[in-house]
């Protein structure tokens, strides 16, 4: 242990006349020179990875939010079709079926489509000006269900078919199930991409750390000579990697956030075009809520932390080899 400063005084003492240390000499260079770590490539890798991870997370959040909106809309509506049948009066069946629905608990609004409205629904396929009197066109009744109430569909079906045998009730369950599985698949794919991105980040950082340690091996050996422990040495390398990780995270995450910030404007340019409409249908308004931006910021910090962790793990393994 050093005994400097004990009762013996300094090892050599040249009296009071001594030169001042030049400023440059006392500048205290970093233990690990910054230039010795190929930082730019690593910052680029972390930035790209963070950008991809942010885009994935943001898209998953948008799809999930849109799907939840569709589901709540579709789930609050049921549709009934009354088909024309020989020997039965379609108008009377529609009125009776609508009445039966109105008396069903949980249904708040019933709207039977008139003959003209039904014709308008078919206009995109059959064109206008066509008389549909001669065609066996079914009539549609749309009912809104009170949010939060559970509708007894079996009772409704039996009541409706008693008054209108050709009527069929559809609560869109198949659609909802399909959307639910589509949303689940999107989230699953997103998590898969995130896992791959994080794995690629860890591998890149480990290689970069190993390269930096190999380039700085003489420094590590000298630090061992002067009694520096592995923790001390690792911390000096770690500072560089944490800074590089944060730089990459801020660049990648920031670019993705800007992208989402401007996405509404971009979507507005494309609105009215088939592509724009498809995207609007899939992703809704295209705007991330504030909590979404918070999630992206947390993710960028998490990737910087993963960079530091991967670097630390590799540092200790390499220090074991060097000693």
């Amino acid at each position: 242990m050093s005994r400097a400063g004990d009762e013996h005084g300094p090892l050599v003492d040249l009296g009071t006349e001594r030169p001042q240390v030049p400023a440059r000499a006392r500048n205290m260079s970093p233990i690990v020179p910054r230039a010795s770590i190929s930082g730019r490539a690593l910052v680029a890798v972390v930035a790209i990875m963070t950008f991809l991870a942010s885009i994935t997370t943001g898209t998953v959040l948008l799809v999930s939010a849109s799907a939840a909106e569709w589901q709540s809309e579709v789930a609050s509506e049921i549709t009934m079709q009354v088909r024309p049948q020989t020997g039965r009066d379609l108008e009377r069946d529609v009125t009776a079926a609508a009445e039966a629905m109105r008396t069903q608990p949980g249904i708040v609004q019933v709207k039977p489509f008139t003959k003209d409205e039904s014709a308008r629904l078919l206009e995109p396929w059959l064109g206008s000006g066509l008389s549909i009197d001669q065609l066996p066109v079914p009539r549609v009744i749309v009912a809104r269900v009170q949010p939060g109430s559970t509708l007894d569909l079996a009772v409704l079906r039996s009541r409706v078919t008693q008054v209108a045998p050709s009527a069929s009730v559809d609560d869109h369950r198949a659609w909802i199930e399909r959307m639910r599985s589509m949303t689940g698949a999107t989230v699953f794919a997103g998590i898969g991409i995130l896992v791959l991105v994080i794995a690629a980040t860890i591998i890149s950082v480990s290689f970069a750390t190993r390269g930096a340690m190999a380039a700085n091996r003489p420094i590590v050996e000298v630090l061992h000579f002067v009694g520096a422990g592995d923790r001390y040495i690792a911390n000096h390398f770690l500072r560089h990697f944490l800074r590089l990780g944060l730089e990459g995270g801020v660049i990648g995450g920031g670019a993705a956030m800007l992208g989402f910030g401007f996405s509404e404007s971009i979507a507005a340019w494309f609105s009215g075009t088939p592509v724009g409409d498809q995207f609007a249908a899939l992703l809704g308004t295209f705007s991330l809520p504030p909590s979404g931006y918070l999630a992206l910021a947390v993710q960028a910090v998490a990737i910087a932390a993963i960079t530091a962790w991967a670097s630390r793990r590799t540092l200790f393994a390499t220090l074991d080899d060097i000693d």
Partner: protein
Amino acid sequence: MVRFENVGLRYGLGPEILRDLSFLIPAHSFQFLTGPSGAGKTSLLRLLFLSLRPTRGLVNLFGQDVSLLGKDQVANMRQKIGIVLQDFRLLDHMTTYENVALPFRVMGREESSYRREVIDLLRWVGLGERMDALPPILSGGEKQRAAIARAVISRPQLLLADEPTGSVDPTLGRRLLRLFIELNRLGTAVIIATHDITLMDQYEARRMVLHQGRLHIYE
């Protein structure tokens, strides 16, 4: 302070280059380690510095069996030992001043607490005008003096020096020897590995002679 008992060392599957070494290095002692080139002087210094582990035998340093030490304990123990190697091992991105102050920095001391000591020592070894120079522009002799200053600055309990006057003129060699003697007077045990007879003749001290892997001690 240092105790070797039947220590042997071989590299890989090669022959034993150090055989049955048994000796004591008492605290406050001064000794020269000598022998022909290739006799194993540097290997013995590396055993003493814990950068090599013996193939057999017992090495006891500062009262502890080194085979039982963990990595952190080895690092702590190295803070009690100063070493000067033949290839100097200075850090090229640091100034002479920073290289010499490195042991204090690793110990976590404030720069203001050791600045005076570092400046005085650098002046003593003739590097007062080269404090802000980087090692690549120093001459061989200047690098050697900087390496010596780094080894002695924290006044270690044990100083190991491998050919410490190999790259300096006789006058400066004598000055450096005086530094080692002064350090020894202040309580450090000193081992200087050299085959410079002139240097050894300047100071009456114990001589440890390595020959064909075996050690002979002349008190």
